[in-house]
């Protein structure tokens, strides 16, 4: 049996060391938006749980939201899904949706942007 208090875990350790990231920093999924040229935008989905196959997710999303997209392999953030256009709402609903989506917890998802 393990004693909780005796674990050598530093709660003040730098969170974004990327190893600690997955463990303690609540594994938020960030949905962001970026402006491109003109009135075009880009949506990024960062921090999807590893248990999902990003490629498959992307495929479904692309079909569903009628947009193009790609998976970017970022050195820090791991795999990030990039989508064309402002898909924040769609993606959020998709991630939460239990039946047709991933059925994630709405609390884990953070939508950024204006």
């Amino acid at each position, binding site marked *: 049996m393990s004693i909780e208090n005796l674990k050598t875990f530093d709660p*003040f350790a730098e*969170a974004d060391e990327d190893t600690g990231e997955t463990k303690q920093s609540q594994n938020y999924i960030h949905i*962001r*938006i970026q402006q*491109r*040229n003109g009135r075009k935008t880009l949506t990024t989905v960062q921090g999807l749980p590893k248990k999902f196959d990003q490629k498959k997710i992307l495929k479904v999303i692309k079909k569903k939201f009628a947009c193009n997209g790609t998976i970017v392999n970022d050195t820090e953030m791991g795999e*990030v899904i990039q989508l064309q256009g402002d898909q924040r709402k769609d993606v959020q609903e998709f991630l939460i949706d239990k039946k047709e989506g991933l059925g994630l917890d709405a609390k884990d998802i953070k939508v950024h*942007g*204006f």
Partner: protein
Amino acid sequence: MPPIQAESPTERKPRKSVAFSEGATIVDTDGQVTESTEMNGRKTSAESHAADADKDVDEVTDMFKDLTKKKKKKSSKTKEGEEEGAAADGEFDPSALKKKKKKKAPKADTDDFEARLAEAAGDKTEGDAASAEPVEEGDMMKGTGLWQHDKTAPISYNLLLNRFFTLLHSQHPDLASSGGKSYKIPPPQCLREGNKKTIFANISEICKRMKRTDEHVTQFLFAELGTSGSVDGSRRLVIKGRFQQKQIENVLRRYIVEYVTCKTCRSPDTELNKGENRLYFVTCNSCGSRRSVTAIKTGFSAQVGKRKRQQG
């Protein structure tokens, strides 16, 4: 006594709304109307007229009490029993303050026992009519009658509630309205510079208002908007990309929720400072709570525009 029996059915009426009972309380002993509450401003004039008329009626006869709206008189103390009963009855009728008041104790004791029982024994703690009478009329603002400091008579919930809101409205109108925060910041002023940049003109003013550093707010804005920018000569913020005032406002609102308002007491009067270990803490000045807030992280930002600095 007959009046009382006649009255009893009417007294069963359901309580009137708060506003109604409030109207009743503002009539003074001599039929004068005091403007103690702002809520019922529209009522007062009518009541003052009615009050005069009612007084006469009282003295002459109590037969019509049911028909006329009588204002309660504090002076009734001095009157003989009959008068008192009449006055009392009349006053219940219109105001229907609360069921508690209804039975005048002395009479009820003698002839109307079961009615009194129905009243629920607790209600009737006031001894006799004489004391019961003024009780109703006490001016809550002046602390007379029922509201006297050393009065031990129980005050009904409705009256207390009434007083609470009256006081609240007169002393702290800002609290009463909306119940929400009246925390206001000036709306962000957004200008377009050229075609691709937005100038956030009054950022320093807003930051001063929130007691946060420009840098922190700027950092947050850039992280949220997924863009970058700079500060120009007159301390205005130049943001790359086109943004409307509404959008900036949304982001600022999120900033305030996250980094300004105290999560415990919702007060915006807080300070943000760096604690040990590079963590930021928000300290509330009104409730003293201290809470760590997440550092601003930009996260992943995709490559937009030219690809020339592709890591090569």
